[in-house]
């Protein structure tokens, strides 16, 4: 099966290099978050939430496959989606630092999920009108799934924040510990700027302003105070990661690293 790539032929090399990095950032964020959620299978607080988290993971990994398949074509070096997922090392992964943070307790997982779901809502909405037809198609499809994810994570945020003293305290703690990674979500670098200038990706400053409004409204509903903005020392999307990504990849890539080319 082949889907027609609507990449303009030719184009300047810098734009194409930026496009590849941009697609890998989206793909790796979905893949790493999906892998994290998969760690909950069999361990979630209730069977329904176990199924919910596994379903989110499945959608995210599906989105990652579509994006990695596109990245592989853009790269044009004969690697496929599996080679990109299983045979790259941590410095080549370009996911947001937030996505790789450990599951912690259920509150940590919900806060991480809700922050990223709200980010994907903005990014996929913008990308649905992208000048890159392939990205627009993937984003429009992913957006439908993301709305469903956000309803799940946002619903839990309200219930946990506006719940018992214990759930409120834990959710507050999760928010305070994960908040420092959020500035990276909408801090543009040269890749983002090149993509938005070409009409491929939405301008991050405007998307970030909408995200902050949404986050503030959700936190009010959850009776949680919104932390202040913090400096931006995290650069997962540039391949500089916290210690947690290496451990995640060691588990995710173990089979292909140990038995190269293994299939089932």
């Amino acid at each position, binding site marked *: 099966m082949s889907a027609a790539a609507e990449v303009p032929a030719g184009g300047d090399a810098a734009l194409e290099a930026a496009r590849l990095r941009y697609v890998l950032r989206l793909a790796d964020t979905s893949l790493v978050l999906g892998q994290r959620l998969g760690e909950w299978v069999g361990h979630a607080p209730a069977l329904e939430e176990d199924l919910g988290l596994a379903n989110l993971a499945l959608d995210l990994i599906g989105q990652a*496959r579509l994006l990695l398949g596109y990245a592989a074509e853009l790269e044009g070096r004969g690697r496929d989606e599996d080679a990109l997922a299983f045979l790259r090392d941590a410095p080549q992964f370009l996911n947001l630092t937030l996505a790789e943070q450990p599951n912690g307790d259920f509150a940590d997982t919900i806060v991480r999920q809700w922050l990223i779901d709200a980010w994907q809502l903005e990014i996929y909405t913008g990308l649905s009108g992208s000048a890159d037809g392939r990205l627009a198609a993937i984003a429009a499809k992913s957006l439908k799934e993301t709305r*469903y994810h956000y309803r799940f994570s946002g619903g839990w945020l309200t219930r946990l924040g506006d719940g018992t003293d214990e759930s409120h305290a834990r959710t507050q703690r999760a928010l305070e510990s994960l908040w420092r990674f959020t500035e990276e979500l909408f801090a543009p670098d040269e890749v983002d700027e090149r993509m938005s200038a070409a009409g491929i990706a939405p301008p991050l400053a405007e998307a970030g302003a909408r995200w902050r409004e949404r986050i503030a409204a959700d936190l009010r509903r959850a009776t949680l105070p919104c932390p202040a903005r913090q400096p931006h020392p995290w650069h997962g999307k540039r391949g500089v990661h916290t210690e947690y990504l290496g451990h995640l990849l060691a588990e995710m890539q173990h089979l292909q690293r140990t038995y190269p080319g293994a299939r089932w």
Partner: protein
Amino acid sequence: MSAVENAGNASVERVWQLLETVADPEIPVLSIVDLGIVRYVRTAADGRLRVGLTPTYSGCPATAAIRSAARSALDAAGFADAALEEVLAPPWSSDWVSPDGRAKLAAFGIAPPPDRAAALSAMPQLRCPRCGSPATERVSEFGSTPCKAHYRCNACREPFDHFKCI
């Protein structure tokens, strides 16, 4: 869909009929045509048949099995040269489940999606597919497959699946 524009083309008609016999691997009462994932069957300028399939959910594990089942059915019926194409846009919607498919879902014990998925934020009030009571409640927004959510009936006390709206 291009069924109408190709109405005179016997091969196209035959392939539509053939694909109506290919069952979804996880909801075997539904064909892939009922599910709305066969987007087109048409004859290209070179005379070759082209069949467009779209995934339901990005990560649906049945996607590969469906492609493979469609391929086998085409090959066995003498359409080995028909090309299967992946279609991503517009994205699949539960609105595309056919009226026939909705009736089959209900008879199978799965509450079908409401006619329009547009109001995703409003949770539909479902009727129990077993006893017909409207006294139902959602247990989880997720269920046994990516396309289903989990409900229960407060009248007959039976749990049931609901085909998610997306």
